[in-house]
């Protein structure tokens, strides 16, 4: 013991070894350690407090996926609540590939083992083995369906691989558009819990096929479905295909009709497979778009289209009081049901060949022919050059204007001294040539502009023509670099020459004349309590107005449209006021150039208290054939008008009950 103490004393120099509490060299390391700890703590705090959100977002982006499902589009109804365009469910049986990760792996191992056991020298690549495994597994599920439905379907490997690579989280459709019987069998025979599931999508449904096809329009595929209500716009998103309006009302009202997309956010593993037995982080149900109630009257529309038949042309009917369009028919048309779910190339080519894409009622611009004489009459009376009680000229069948001789194309040489009502009824060209000469073109064009015939109507449809022309001297100078001749005025006064209008414009013009006003903005949206339109008055005296309407009534009873004065078209207690027109159009058919006739008819009824106005334009199909407004276009309008009053006078218990659409 004494010896040990001595040794200790020798080593420390003291009997007891003592710890030195303060050593500047050690303190230096204290500071270094504290500094490092501070740095570490600061770094942690920085990462946690300032970069926490960033890492959270990165973690979300890495292990969450968003699936967007488009909402169905809203329905389109006619003014009485008849469905014009709806949605039809499409039943499909689908396979959720993202639930089959384990099965794919097992099958991969089995196939690889088989190759190795057979000592096959041409062992497929890993990617090829994966493809084989996926096809094999999916085929095994498809065999279950084949057994239930008695089919013999095979997996399309290319389509499967594409879906696997791009849309792993979206259901893979094995069979689409299942008929109800097959769908019912699968409901009962497929296991409730399985990667195989029944799935419903929807497509547009057109219960009336080609009716109002160009007006209603069609939809196309929308690959870019978006949702403002489902969070996670920064996440990798899988989008199911939606639809978007491409033409007609579907295009114009797309924001209204478009449904609100729903969807889900799921957690996935690093390979992108959905984590098993986990619920969606967030789910939002898709919502159907808003419904649109149009002003179209389905019954009248069908009547108009049936009356036009296989002819080329258009018919427009307007509610005189509100400007609501009751009929907007154009032929040729196309079958909308061929667009659901998508139009094939053959049908598209057929529509193109028939020229059926164009809505002639709004996109076509045609010379209005003698229907324009109503405007010339109004302009003449307002300018004081036409006195309804005085003859304007003596119709001898021709008139010399400038250095040209113009002939009367209607009953040449028989009109003699004729008053305004007779001139309208007999459509005497000489009367209007004389009126145009006295009126001057600038005043005639100004009257046309007053009725808004020089501009678009503003109807809620795309592709309304801009080619309407209300010509004057400035127009001819600007476009052709030529001065205006008196002969040009003569042509314009009977709706020929440079004058071009659309059938819709003429229907609006007829409605304006019916209301004794100058402007009728048309609309395709039905408003049950829409107020009566009130625009600028035409400015005719009662006598002038009376003469104008009398001329239009005489047109039907004894004038150029007397073909309508038969029981087939007569409406008890209702007088129809109308004006025929026949214009020419130069065409080349079968290598032969010539003119075909454009048959026009504008009208309103009842003549005393108008409710409905119409314009019909039909194209003749044979060069040089007899084709005119009274004979061809008039019956179409008269049939529709008669139907209108039949429906109106139908007993209350047989009427279609208007409904309210939310």
């Amino acid at each position, binding site marked *: 013991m004494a010896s040990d103490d001595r040794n200790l004393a020798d080593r420390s120099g003291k009997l007891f070894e003592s710890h030195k509490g303060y050593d500047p060299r050690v303190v230096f390391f204290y500071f270094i350690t504290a500094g490092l700890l501070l740095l570490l703590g600061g770094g942690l705090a920085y990462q946690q407090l300032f970069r926490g959100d960033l890492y959270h977002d990165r973690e979300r982006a890495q292990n969450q996926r968003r699936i967007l499902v488009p*909402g*169905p589009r*809203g*329905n389109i109804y006619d003014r009485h609540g008849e469905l014009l365009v709806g*949605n039809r*469910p499409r039943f499909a049986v689908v396979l959720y590939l993202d639930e089959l990760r384990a099965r794919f792996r097992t099958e991969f191992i089995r196939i690889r083992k088989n190759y190795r056991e057979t000592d096959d020298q041409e062992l497929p690549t890993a990617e090829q083995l994966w493809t084989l495994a996926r096809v094999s597994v999916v085929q095994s599920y498809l065999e279950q369906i084949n057994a*239930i439905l008695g089919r013999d379907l095979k997996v399309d490997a290319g389509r499967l691989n594409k879906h696997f690579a791009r849309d792993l989280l979206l259901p893979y459709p094995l069979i689409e558009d299942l008929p*109800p*019987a097959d*769908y*019912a*069998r699968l*409901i*009962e*025979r*497929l296991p*409730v*819990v399985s990667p195989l599931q*029944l799935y*419903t999508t*929807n497509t547009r449904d057109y219960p009336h096929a080609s009716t109002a096809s160009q007006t209603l329009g069609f939809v196309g595929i929308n690959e870019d479905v978006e949702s403002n209500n489902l969070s996670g716009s920064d996440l990798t998103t899988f989008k199911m295909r939606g639809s978007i309006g491409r033409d007609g009302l579907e295009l114009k009202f797309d924001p209204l009709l478009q*449904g609100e997309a*729903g969807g889900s956010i799921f957690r996935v593993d690093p390979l992108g497979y959905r984590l098993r037995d986990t619920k969606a982080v967030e789910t939002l*149900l*898709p*919502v*159907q778009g808003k419904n649109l109630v149009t002003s179209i009257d389905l019954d009248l529309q069908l009547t108009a289209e049936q009356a036009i038949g296989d002819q080329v042309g258009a018919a427009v009917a307007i509610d005189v009081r509100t400007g609501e369009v009751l009929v907007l028919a154009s032929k040729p048309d196309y079958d909308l049901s061929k667009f659901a779910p998508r139009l094939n190339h053959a049908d598209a080519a057929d529509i193109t060949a028939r020229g059926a894409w164009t809505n002639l009622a709004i996109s076509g611009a045609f010379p209005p022919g003698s229907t324009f004489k109503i405007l010339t009459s109004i302009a003449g009376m307002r300018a004081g050059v036409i006195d309804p009680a005085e003859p304007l000229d003596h119709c001898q069948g021709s008139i010399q204007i400038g250095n040209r001789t113009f002939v009367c194309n209607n009953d040449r040489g028989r009109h003699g001294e004729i008053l305004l009502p007779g001139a309208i009824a007999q459509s005497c060209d000489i009367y209007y040539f004389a009126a145009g000469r006295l009126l001057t073109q600038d005043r005639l064009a100004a009257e046309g502009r007053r009725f808004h015939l020089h501009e678009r109507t503003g109807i809620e449809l795309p592709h309304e023509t801009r080619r309407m022309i209300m010509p004057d001297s400035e127009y001819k100078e600007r476009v052709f670099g030529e001065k205006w001749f008196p002969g040009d005025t003569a042509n314009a006064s009977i709706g020929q020459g440079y004058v071009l209008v659309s059938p819709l414009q003429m229907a609006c013009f007829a409605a304006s004349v019916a209301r004794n006003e100058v402007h009728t903005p048309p609309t395709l949206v039905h408003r049950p309590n829409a107020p009566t339109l009130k625009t600028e008055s035409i400015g005719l005296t009662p006598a002038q107005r009376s003469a104008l309407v009398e001329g239009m009534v005489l047109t039907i009873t004894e004038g150029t449209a007397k073909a309508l004065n038969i029981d087939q078209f007569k409406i008890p207690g209702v007088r129809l006021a109308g004006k025929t027109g026949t214009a020419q159009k130069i065409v080349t058919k079968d290598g032969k150039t010539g003119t075909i006739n454009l048959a026009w008819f504008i009208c309103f009824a009842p003549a005393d208290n108008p409710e409905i106005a119409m314009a019909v334009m039909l194209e003749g199909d044979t060069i040089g054939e007899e084709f005119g407004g009274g004979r061809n276009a008039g019956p179409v309008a008269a049939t529709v008008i008669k139907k209108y009053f039949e429906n109106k006078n139908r007993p209350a218990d047989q009427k279609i009950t208007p409904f309210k659409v939310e």
Partner: protein
Amino acid sequence: MPKRFDQARPFLTLGLVVAAWLIVPTVFKTFTRASFFELTAPVSVAASYARDLQEYWSLRLRSNSELIEAGRDLARLNASYDLAVQQNVEMQGEIARLEAILRLPSYSGYRSEHARVVRRDFSGWWQRLTIRKGKNFNFTVGSPVVFSGGVVGRVSEVFAYTATVDLISSQTVRLAAVVEGDIRPISYQGGLNPTFSSAGGVIEFVPLDIFASANATKRLVTSGLGGVFPPGLTIGSVIKVEPSTDGLFKSGEVKLDDRLAALTEVTVLVPLESY
């Protein structure tokens, strides 16, 4: 050995058993499970027979006048059933004649096999019955099971002398149904039915023009289109339908027959082609 280790021994043993169960092959587990059911089935069946005997002795305690009255009621019931059977035979003959004229395929035939319920197993997860017949009567998985009030469910497992029936109140049962008077198939599935609550189910893909409420219920019947259940069997009453947000369909609730929870006898429809 430390005392603490002794205390932990049961937990250790349990852990070892669980670990061993996890790693044994699936074939062994399946065999064990099937064996368990086959071994316990006689116990359930014996208990069922004992209950029958109990009921028999309880009936023996009834007075003669009560039994005579019950016998009369039964005779009347039998008479009405005899009449219904005769009418059914006539109708089946007429259907066969029409099918022959129109060259329509006949519906698949079924053989009715009555079976006594030996056990009811209701939980929030499943709702099942065990019945006293199995492979010995050629039952097959998926066979429809009915009772006087309509559909009971489907056979989900078949053992030597017993079979398990998944009730239509169970979420594992789905079938193609139609609302009475309509022909469009809709999907019926058992709902979430907590213990002691009245049984119900849900319907999906209901056309928009179908309306029903608690005050104006609609009868839901089998469609016959699914190929498992014959058409026209009552499933329950539709007590609520409401449109889904996508506007394509409605979905709704179905109230099932309260007698499903107290069944003592059911009928298994064994498809003839599988017999």
